[in-house]
């Protein structure tokens, strides 16, 4: 069963808007995390005092 693998059963869908919006938002959040970690690393290493 697909559910045992953690994926959606066939045919189960969110409304069309959310089907597109959710993955876009998640990718944007992931990119933001990477960016912030870079800033934090720069500050911790003293490379950027701001």
């Amino acid at each position: 069963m697909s559910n045992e693998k953690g994926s959606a059963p066939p045919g189960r869908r969110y409304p069309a808007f959310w089907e597109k919006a959710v993955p876009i938002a998640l990718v944007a959040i992931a990119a933001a995390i990477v960016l912030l970690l870079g800033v934090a690393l720069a500050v911790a290493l003293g490379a950027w005092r701001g």
Partner: protein
Amino acid sequence: MSTLIRVLPFISCVVSLVFAFFVFRRYARRRGSHLLLWGIGMVLYGIGGFCEAYYSAFGWNPLVFRLWYLCGAILVAAWLGQGTVYLLARRRWAHALMALLALGSLYAAWRVFAAQLDPALMTSGLHTGSELSGRAIVTPGVRTLTPFFNTYGTLTLVGGAAYSAWLFWRKRILLHRTIGNILIAAGAILPAFGGTFSRIGIPGALYLGELLGAVLMFIGFIRATTPMQAAGAGAQAPTTKAPSPS
């Protein structure tokens, strides 16, 4: 200092304390370490906002600055993130990380309250002095603590909320929790970006980021804990243990 910058932290303080009240009320009904820690985290958020509002209204005060730096700059993200750790991680790991966080918080409190301060440094470089800034801390090594706490907080709070949203989205269940977790993740990121923009000299960026962050997280929490009326994917029960502000 513009009127807007004066008002923003006061609103942030009110929003975050109201948010904390909702979280504590839910904790009183349902229990759960994650709710308790999120409530504490939002109180820390509120204290940070209060200190910023005090600075905007009355100017420099060393005690207020120290409280702001400890609660608002160092601890808030990490304690909120620790709540998410209790939701996502095994209990044993969560307890171990909680012990580390508690010890780290005590050490940070000692360093912040023992540090030498010079408010004149907040107007040096790109920083305008219109907002509180860690630049006022003269003693070396204190500001170095901040990225460690904030990195832990960002990874656990933002990463945990995004991971939760992804789990729900992958199974196409509980749409309200998917949306709520995305809003929480986005809201938790905003103060960090506000701080970054403030570092490069954009006035009001930190306070605006904090206000928008508190509002988004609050909306996200309400969204995640309120089932949607529409039938279909969003109305089904989860089949696995999935993190949410339940």
